[in-house]
């Protein structure tokens, strides 16, 4: 097992180097840079930025250097000092921009993940066991609806209903008085009061797909001989279901969780923008739009690292869940 882990990690290294180069190139290749973008945004406000000022800014930010040199400076900073570079737009080191938002992002993502699992796994099992009953049809119908409706649309609709129907304040994860307040018990309560709406919106599509995965896999397992054998031995129906076929049915679900970290960090970007949530997703989008390149490249690099880590983790989890995989991999 240790050998297996080590080998997987070594494989990841060249992938990470390639990813770092590609993510930097992706940001640098399009024509224009942060300065041209700033100048265009200023122009949209009526403020035409003199060319001399642009050139001066470009020199100051080091954007006049050749791209390979810029890349080298950036990547050596990360490797040697853990310094991800400077966000031009926020005028702060990249890590100082991303980390403060990470906490809320993780809370929101974990909350919606738990929501998905808590709702979807029982419903999936139910609709597999009680196939073609009214309950199954209702779950299936709602599931497809959840899959089909885009999240941002759901967010807009939910916000409008919250506003028009209940007069609730929309946008953000906190009431105005708690937005920039230090953490306190009241602030946590306030957060919980706002968290449920984005949690449900983010969770619906996920819920639907998990229901479908569990249902389909479980149906395959339910009629296998080992189930009949266990039943013949007089094992209770619920314990039997949980111990054997459900465990099998979870396999594809677990291996599908390799992008769980990416979802946690950047999931629901569009929903977060629509609902005005202070999470990391909108940061990434803004960084890309304004060509705030160290910020964007660092973000993409972090996401890629998380994909690699997530894949590793889901492999290990699968090996733990299913002995067959353990033996095959040696």
């Amino acid at each position, binding site marked *: 097992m240790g050998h297996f882990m080590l080998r997987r990690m070594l494989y990841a290294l060249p992938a990470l180097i390639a990813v770092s180069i590609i993510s930097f190139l992706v940001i640098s290749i*399009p*024509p*224009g840079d942060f300065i*041209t*973008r700033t*100048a*265009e*945004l*200023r*122009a*949209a*406000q*009526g*403020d*035409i930025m*003199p*060319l*001399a*000022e*642009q*050139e*001066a*800014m470009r*020199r*100051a*930010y*080091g954007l006049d250097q050749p791209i390979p040199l810029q890349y080298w400076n950036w990547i050596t900073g990360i490797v040697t000092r853990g*310094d991800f570079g*400077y966000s031009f*737009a*926020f*005028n*702060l*080191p990249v890590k100082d*921009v991303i980390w*403060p938002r990470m906490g809320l992002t993780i809370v929101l993502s974990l909350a919606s993940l738990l929501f998905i699992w808590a709702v979807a796994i029982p419903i999936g099992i139910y609709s597999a066991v009680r196939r073609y009953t009214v309950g199954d049809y209702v779950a299936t119908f709602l599931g497809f609806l959840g899959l089909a409706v885009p999240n941002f649309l759901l967010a*807009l609709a939910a*916000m*409008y209903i919250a*506003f028009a129907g209940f007069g609730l*304040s*929309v*946008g*953000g994860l*906190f009431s*105005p008085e708690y*937005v*920039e307040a230090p953490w306190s018990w009241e602030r946590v309560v306030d957060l919980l009061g706002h968290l449920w709406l984005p949690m449900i919106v983010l969770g619906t599509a996920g819920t639907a797909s998990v229901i479908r995965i569990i249902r389909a896999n479980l149906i395959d397992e339910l009629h296998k001989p080992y189930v009949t054998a266990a039943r013949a031995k007089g094992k209770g129906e619920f314990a039997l279901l949980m111990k054997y076929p459900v465990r099998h049915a979870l396999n594809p679900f677990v291996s599908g969780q390799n992008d769980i970290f990416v979802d946690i960090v950047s999931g629901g970007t569009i929903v977060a*923008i*629509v*609902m*005005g949530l*202070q999470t990391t997703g*909108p940061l990434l989008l*803004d960084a890309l*739009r304004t060509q705030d390149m160290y910020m964007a490249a660092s973000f993409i690099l972090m996401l890629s690292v998380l994909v690699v880590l997530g894949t590793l983790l889901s492999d290990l989890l699968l090996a733990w869940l299913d002995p067959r995989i353990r033996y095959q991999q040696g």
Partner: protein
Amino acid sequence: MLEGNPMQNRVYHLGRRMAGTTLLLAATALPSMAQDNAAMCPGGFGQAPQLQAMVDAGNLPPVADRLPVEPLVVQPADGIGSYGGQFIDSWGGGNVADFRQFGYDPLVRWSVDGSTVEPNIAKGWEISEDATSYTFFLREGMKWSDGQPFTADDIVFWWERVENNPKVMTGGPRGEMLNNGGKPTVTKVDDYTVTFTYEQPNGLFLQNLAGPYGQRVVMFPKHYMEQFDIDLNPEGVAEMMAEAGATDYAAWWKGNVGSYGDASQFNNPERPTLLGWIGQDSILGKERVTFVRNPYYFKVDPDCQQLPYIDERVWTLAADPEVTLLQAVQGQISMSPRNVSTPQNRAVFFDNQEAGNYHLVPATSCDYNTAVLGLSVNHPDPIKAEVFGSKDFRAGLSHAINRQEIIDTVYLGQGEPFQPAPLPGSPFYNEALAKEFTEFDLAKAAEYLDKIVPMGPDGVRLGPDGKPFSFAIDINADFRPDTVDAYQLIERTWKQVGLDVTINFHSDELFGNARARPDSDGAVWVGENGCGQLPLVNLGRFMNDYGYWSLGNWSGWAAWDIKRLNPDAELPEGWTPVEPPANVQRLYELRSIIPTTVGEEQAALMGEFTDLLAEEFLTIGIATPAGFYRSVKNEVHNVPESLIEGWLYPGPAPINFETLYIAQ
């Protein structure tokens, strides 16, 4: 307010009549002889209860000591207000123009109606006969928000250590401070008198100072800023830069100190200010920001109460305009921001007035056109350069635009057909320029087009080389979405006259690159700063030469002009001078000369400028912008009956936000 003070009035005539108001720039000269402000308000000054409590506790000097000897008395729009409350704005996260409702307290300012320049931080000024020297009189006893005196030294510090310091302003002073390229000398006469002297007459200095960039003059408290100056405090700056992990001084300065236009200017709550409210915390990356009353603010109401009335200015982040719109119609923000207060959203705003507890205040726009099309007169393809450089082609295009249909369907019936020209009501309005070729007439359009791009055998027009002629127009689909609708209608009528045109709609991110491409055929942008006196400080835009910025490729003419002014000047990469036609050459000359003239001479040259523009017809417009408004919460009082939107008049900031109050 100045009764009893020896006062001398000198009147400087600087323009023609505008909209019934005589354009006069009054100069109150001679500093006041008063020793304190007790005579002005024998009953003493009033102040906010919070400040009174601090005075009582001994934490703050009495209000009379905090105010200058001659505070500026501001006449509120409706009446005397009361202290308290919050004014809540929505913002996108730290850009200057989100602060267009905040941060306007320059040395001299636009009057609320935008017609004249008035005293503000300077209580008066004197202009020499030949308009080369401007002397400003500051307010004795005026203080920064930390209680330190504001004097002529602060202005000299800004000029020497900021504007002319190549280590922070690597490109030199901003153009607004220059006159035909020449720098002024800035001299401290005494603590409360400062003189700007130019070599040539400067006819536009007051207007430039009253615009947003004029704010730079009074935002650098010498006693506080010296610590950030690498020459005055080398070790300290090195330490701060090392702590921030910065290597370049100019970048660090821009990001941590900053001037007007930099997001950092409000990011440091420690930085003393002259504005009405001061920050409590850094703002970048924050979701909700609160600014509180400046206890040293230099303005009072006619009842001797210190302004501002409102306790707190709050900005609440909304990254998405739809969220901003929802917040506004829910009544969560005190005044709707410009980006959602569009004619297209008017119905939504109107319907929710009662529920959101707000009303709509009409706003006129200083924009002189909803959409201006500039064609690449210096296109690298000589055929295209010839066609786009032809007035007949442009006149043909213009006649083939059904402006009334666009106004009726896209602009909801608001506005009138208009070319890029000073607005009616501006002293520089020129009807011939404003209305030429605005009539929708396909036959006339064909007649003009036939002269340069004759109709080919299969219904497509041919270029001067006899080959089918096609062109494309670049449009920013995000900036002003109405432009998209308008140009879809225009595309249809242009095709009817046999033009092979493609309209490219770009996202905001990509438009900049599309516009700046040398072989872009033409691009569309809004026309800004066309009301009142603003055309004077905006001549370049009417010629589609904003400096380096233009719609379509204009770089040849722009380069010619740069070389005309300074044969040794270095040209931006890829620019080659192209000699413009005689009329355009004269326009460029006028652009240089007009700012150095005053009075009748200036007015006459402006007349020549607009006449030449009419003769050349350089750019094509659609309509005057109309139908603007802002939602204002019913609890907010002293908002004028109508507002002005603009940039060089940075509306609505000049409406005296310090006099607004919240009814309890």
